[in-house]
């Protein structure tokens, strides 16, 4: 690769569907772009918009959220809450000047290893096209102080 821009993407996924789907992609030895870092949560309902903002502030060029398909949530409703929250949050992103295209939302089940790999590749390509996210670059200095106890 001749110095193309490689985006850094943070994924928030639920442990029951998408995390298991990502594991399946691994056990199936599918290959996908190494740009995504996964943070495992019990349910997409646990994903606070603050996590997304923090990720973008911390230097992520894109964020993706994925959980169980509607109706399949292990906790019955969590993904519906997440979806509703996302619909509202998307408008807010736009309002504060963050292109909503930098935040992707998907449903990937534990059986969809192939879909997971394809989704990671397509998101990586999309974010790569959008270029680095520099909105918060001046803030990163302040937040990068080692967060150790």
């Amino acid at each position, binding site marked *: 690769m001749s110095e193309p821009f490689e985006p850094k993407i943070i994924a928030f996924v639920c442990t029951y569907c998408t995390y298991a789907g990502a594991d399946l992609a691994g056990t199936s*030895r599918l290959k996908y772009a*190494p740009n995504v870092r996964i943070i495992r949560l*019990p349910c997409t309902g*646990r994903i*606070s918009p603050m*996590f997304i903002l*923090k990720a973008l502030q911390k230097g992520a060029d894109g964020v993706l959220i994925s959980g169980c398909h509607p109706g399949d949530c292990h906790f019955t409703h969590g993904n519906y809450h997440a979806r509703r929250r996302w619909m509202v949050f998307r408008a807010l992103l736009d309002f504060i000047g963050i292109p909503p295209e930098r935040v992707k939302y998907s449903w990937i089940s534990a059986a969809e290893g192939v879909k997971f790999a394809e989704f990671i590749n397509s998101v990586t390509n999309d974010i790569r096209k959008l270029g680095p996210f520099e909105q918060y670059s001046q803030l990163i200095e302040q937040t990068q102080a080692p*967060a*150790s106890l």
Partner: protein
Amino acid sequence: MAKIGVFICHCGENVGAKVDCTKLAAALGDHPGVAVSVEYKYFCSDPGQESVKKAIRDNNLTGVVVAACSPRMHEATFRKACAEAGLNPYLCEIANIREQCSWVHTDKDLATEKAMDITRSMVEKVKRNNKLQPIEVPVTRRALVIGGGIAGIQAALDIANAGQDVVLVEREPSLGGHMAQLSETFPTLDCSQCIMTPRMVEAAQHPKIRLLTYSEIESVDGYIGNFTVRVRMKSRYVDIDKCTGCGDCITKCPAKKISSEFDCSLGKRTAIYTPFAQSVPNIPVIDKANCIYFKNGKCKICAKTCQCDAINFDMPDTFVDLEVGAIVVATGFQVQNNSLYGEYGYGKYPDVINGLQFERLASASGPTAGKIMRPSDGAEPQTVVFIQCAGSRDPSKGVRYCSKICCMYTAKHAMLYAHKVHDGKTHIFYMDIRAAGKGYDEFSRRAIEEDEAAYIRGRVSKVWQENGKLMVRGVDTLLGKPVEIAADMVVLATAIVAQPDAKEFAKTIGIGYDEYGFYNEAHLKLRPVESSTAGVFLAGACQSPKDIPDSVAQASATASKVLALFSKDKLEREPVVATNNEVTCAGCWGCVLACPYNAIEKKDIVDRSGRVIKRVASINPGLCQGCGTCVTFCRSNSIDLAGFTEKQIFAEVMGL
């Protein structure tokens, strides 16, 4: 100061080939707060685990990160190892550098870089992990079974025979459910009553089973192992302790023309009645809506007849409060309203009946004593047309799903009819014959080959009356020709649907249901008898249409689940539950709306004089399943989820 141990596993070549573990160990060794950073071929092996334990003891580690395979694989292994070394198991986390790194990437440098990020992020999380203790909840060893059909009876008997107490609640005056209404059962053609009634008696006489008939569930509170249930015992107006079941009152009751629910309105009953002759308990009830005394204030013939003084017109409903540890829901099904199909003339022509009505006609204890007689004039029908899928597999008018039992019972009906009316002719309109099951296909073949049922593949468009006959117009799609049959009786294989109040009832007990009102299992394949609520199990057709063998099998499965639950004094649960900071809680109840488990209650904070100064949310750790949806809802940041706290997740993000 944090002292984290990082253990990087090569997993043989699985990680080692794509991630430079030495470089990774060195990089993590320099990370603030990391005391030990080592690599090894197989940390999950016995010597590997021993080395982790030794490192914990030697360095007094305050947290452990194992960079290896998925936590779904070995989280439990390493947490156990930590516990053995004296470290709280919840201070151990797994960084997944195999399934989500080495196995899916080809470039070693990029994979190593990603592995560093993943591991670092996990180190930052572990620094903020808290010591957690498994939650222990006591178990009340008594089960509640709701529904006294074959599934409920089977579940109750299995649990009771294992020596545990059971309360069996049935809302009708007698046990039996739909199975008691059937004439014969497929694929053996044995009499339903003959196999059902002994089980009903066994359940009623079992010393471990408390039977509450003519009773309904009012409310369910609590959580697994600790439910409190209120049951309304509807007034029978007959004292269950005094009544001997002699039946004199029934014989003498002057209100005799009431349509019998048990006979699907093909027969009549009195106002004081038992649903059928073999009712268990054999104690009548007074149907208040049709009783002459309740309507006009005069009559009381039953009370005068009764020699035991058992009739009491002032009897109120009573309530029973129960403490139970597990609940089996076996509330069954109903048949769909046939009048949805106006073109088939159900309700308009008395000789168009549904499958359940045919069961009553064929039953030896039915309104015709087992003689097949058409309802309009009592004549023996010479030609009978059966219409399958009258409601099932029909998204436009009926239901989308297959009702599963209709192919089999229609074949059975054709056989019963052929055995009773020897020169009769049957025609069966079908879409497909679905006869999967032990002995099922042989059975439906027998209907065709021995009992000469004429199967016509196609749908019926219209049924109308002409010259005393029911004209059935349909199509034979195999011949590609329209068909018209002059029939004496038409039987619709009606769809099986959820009970009319199934959704309401699901809300009462706090379980999920699908678009049709059938109750949702926790996992369709791997947890088919558990509901999404811990401690509540599902048996029989309340979950989906089922035949008798499946219902019985599922009922026994719920019994084994209940007994497993009762095998312990205390339940241990993962401590991943939400907790609320009552000081900052503003009482907005956003969390209450968010919680899918009704785990959050409103709690009064009182001062010394007992005055309520504040109302806050209180999360019941027994009910909480740890999804964390309430945490995100909380406007005042008062709720947090153990194991996935705000601090931990922000630290993970910061570590990337």
